[in-house]
């Protein structure tokens, strides 16, 4: 059921809407949040690869970097499993930001 904004009678669908019922809201938000977290995780992973390839990192930095990335990877998998989401569910079109991935 749509609550029409006054004056909208002639153009009921001018805007693109993402309609969400209350039960879907949580799932939608979780998906959005995890997608953004995953985006950041992937960005960090790529940056780490670039930094290692560029050289100049101390051994202990490399070790800590790698261990943190491993942990993040593990945690993301756990979170996804917990919410019943597959990797493909966390796929968002970010327009120009998509270039970062």
């Amino acid at each position, binding site marked *: 059921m749509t609550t029409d904004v006054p004056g909208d009678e002639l*153009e009921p*669908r*001018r805007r*693109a809407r993402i309609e969400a019922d209350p039960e879907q809201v949580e799932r939608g938000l979780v998906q959005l949040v995890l997608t953004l977290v995953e985006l950041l995780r*992937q960005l960090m*992973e*790529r940056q*780490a*690869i670039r930094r*290692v*390839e560029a050289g100049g990192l101390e*051994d202990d930095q*490399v*070790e*800590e*970097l*790698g*261990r*943190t*990335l*491993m942990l993040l990877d*593990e945690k993301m998998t756990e979170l996804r499993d917990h919410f019943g989401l597959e990797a493909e569910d966390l796929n968002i079109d970010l*327009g*120009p930001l*998509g*270039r*970062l*991935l």
Partner: protein
Amino acid sequence: MITLFAVTWRTHAPTLDKDGLAVLADGNLAMIVGPTPSTTSREDALAFGRVVERVASAVDVLPFRYGTTAADTEAARELLRENESSWAARLLQVEGCSELAIRAARPESDEEPAASGAAHLDRLVSRSRQLDIAEEEIGRLLTGRCRVVRRLAGHQELRLSCLVERHQVDLLRVLVEEWAASQTELEVSVTGAWATYSFVANDEEAG
């Protein structure tokens, strides 16, 4: 609200007589439009793509991104008018071409976590390098045989889009498939020919 599928030359505009599709013409261009379903879904996106591909099999098109809409046919015509010269220029850039999509990635595997942080990073770096090498090798096959190659964003995956003249498509596909057969660690796929989605976006929006 109507869905915008693609733009093509007015003189080449197809006759569309089913599924509620219509062709709006203005100046030198024509726009294929149709009804907008009330929900968005993968199936709807694929149906959208199939319409675009159907038109693209016969004429050069500028495909819209799925979900692009206009309030009504008048608004769509207005868009056509406003963008005529830039869209005509882009159509010329992809004239006679299709898009081949190449993907390469290591298959999913449940492997042991690395023994240390450094080993984990090492693994990441060597995998990234593996994809870069694949890009170079495929690039050599494509040189001189396709107009443009773009590497698309992808995580732990090589994704290449090639702007190929139609008469070169089959040859390129065979060359890449031969290369793929020689790969023991990467799974490779070549699909297409597609409409030239990856080569028509605005520069500032490309990606």
